[in-house]
């Protein structure tokens, strides 16, 4: 079970791939700084832009540096589940903190 099975288990990235990802990440870092500092985007959308860029960067790291793209889907699911539960925590907490002064909801 050892020899021939190894290939699909252990993906080996080429140096070129890794350098390309890193370059992409650095470019995105520059983009996010430029967008934040020099492009006037109205209030909530500046955060949306910054987070969107960060999500793309996070995807690159997770998929290619952390090998999720080639890995078993279950590990990717774990990552997504972690993020999903974090979002649940935030969203439900906001249900309280953002609506404290609102009137009581009614049917």
């Amino acid at each position: 079970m050892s020899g021939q099975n190894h290939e699909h288990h252990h993906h080996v990235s080429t140096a070129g791939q890794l350098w390309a990802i890193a370059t992409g990440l650095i470019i995105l870092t520059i983009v996010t700084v430029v967008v934040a500092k020099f492009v006037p985007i109205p209030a909530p959308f500046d955060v949306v832009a910054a987070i969107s860029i960060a999500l793309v960067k996070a995807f690159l790291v997770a998929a290619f540096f952390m090998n999720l793209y080639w890995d078993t889907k279950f590990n990717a699911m774990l990552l997504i589940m972690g993020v999903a539960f974090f979002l649940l925590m935030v969203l439900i907490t906001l249900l309280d903190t953002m609506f404290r002064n609102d009137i009581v909801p009614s049917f």
Partner: protein
Amino acid sequence: MATAEVSNTRTLKVKRFKPSEDPKKTYLTEEKGLWSWLTTVDHKKIGLMYLGSVTLFFLLGGVLALLLRTELLTPAKTFIEADTYNQFFTLHGAIMVFFVLVPSIPAALGNFILPMQLGAKDVAFPRLNLASFYIYVIGAIFTFFALVNNGLDTGWTFYTPYSIESNSSVIWVTLGAFILGFSSILTGTNFITTIHKMRAPGITWGKLPLNIWALYATSIIQVLATPVLAITLLLLTMERVFGIGIFDPAMGGDPVLFQHFFWFYSHPAVYIMIVPGFGIISEVITTFSKKHIFGYWAIALSSLAIAFIGFLVWGHHMFTSGQSAVATTVFSFLTFLVGIPTGIKILNWVATLYKGSIEMKTPMIYVFIFLFLFSIGGFTGIMLGSLAADIHLHDTYYVVAHFHYVMMGGTLIALLAGLHFWWPKMTGKMYNEFQAKIGAALIFIGFNMTFLPQFIMGSQGMPRRYYNYIDQFTIFHQTSTIGSYILGVGFLLIAYYLLVSLFRGEKAPANPWGSRGLEWQATSPPDLHNFDHTPVIINGPYDYHKPMEEFQLGLADSGHNGHDPSHDATGAKQEVVSN
């Protein structure tokens, strides 16, 4: 195993392995001495060390409980001061929750049983397993330190801002619980990995014992919720050290936010405590009914459903806290949804009894007690989930009674069921059945006498965490106190006959209850590596309609442990090699 590549046409050479009734070497005799225990990576020994520590803490928490009940014999001062009382109830809560209930079933019994039910030699990360035990010990030392040094008087919930200004040793306990959290996380991580990667050939997801499903659901909660407790306690510690102000109203922070953080862990934590209990009930009830479980998938998936929905309901601890009306409404609604899978389980267990062959041995008696007490706990939970009723009942003895019915009537009774069930396997000794039944009766009577009056005084308006109380509640408090003494005697009796059985107990056969569970196909007590063969599983764990021989199969030749369990052993031809 070149033939194993093509699963449908392969031939598994299996052989019948009847467990020896008189094992020469067991995990207890293979290596001896204190050092072999302290450095062991054997999941069985680690499980027992956990069991020992949990028992010690249960003793400590129990003594505190009896002292509390004694103080409440009369209004005002009976024999201790208000501050002492406040420290006692805080430590009783903190010890019972963090040091007893959370690790009791997963880390103690689960550690012992899980790899055996999977047909594995050990958990995936044995050294992490040992580390988790020592982390537990370090957390315990921190808490002990607080106990002798100023105590802790915040309530186990650590609500801010009281916990920020309290004079007691809050930091020691928060750090203790913080450290303890890692022990819980490591156990959870270990179990998830073990369940995914270490199953013996033929154990497909549909053939997992329900105990494993329950431990799996528990591990998921442990992994997802415990880190949030860790960060919450760390923030509280920083709050006391630097006054970071996030939860401190004096600095412009928000105490209700702390409650969200705290309950995001602590509500799922009650499922960490109870769900593994569900697993034990499923194992015991089928064994002693000699019957297939009713609704396997309903029970298995409802554990997962509870685990997930359990994350969405934490705000029902906060209906009167001043959280927003929207949040209150949503939390109440979701709370009812989590009640449904729990109800489904109860009814499935009762249906399992139908047309069974029921033998009322001690573990089964505890299952009956569990079903009765836990149902009461569940129904009162529905009561507390409904908004108007909760406004009246919140923070009264009704709540105290409710969670004791769930946590003690549920988890602890399930633990006792499991302990009696697996005791012969763990120790190789039988306990005295008659004394065990007396013990169960004492527990049942004492428990109800302690906590039923608390429902009544709670709905009459008696608030919890009260040192002093108004005269009209005296009779309820006194009944409750007497009940708690009976309960105490019951636990002493159990400790007594279990200890006696270690030295003078009859030798246990490999499978005293006639169970079809895989763990019973090992010797009692098991070999250091659990089985002296690699088990092959063809039948489900509850196939009581099939003969025992079909459950005693193992790979005839040495080598693979079916690393890839998706290879269904039923699909393969079995060639039974005669003994």
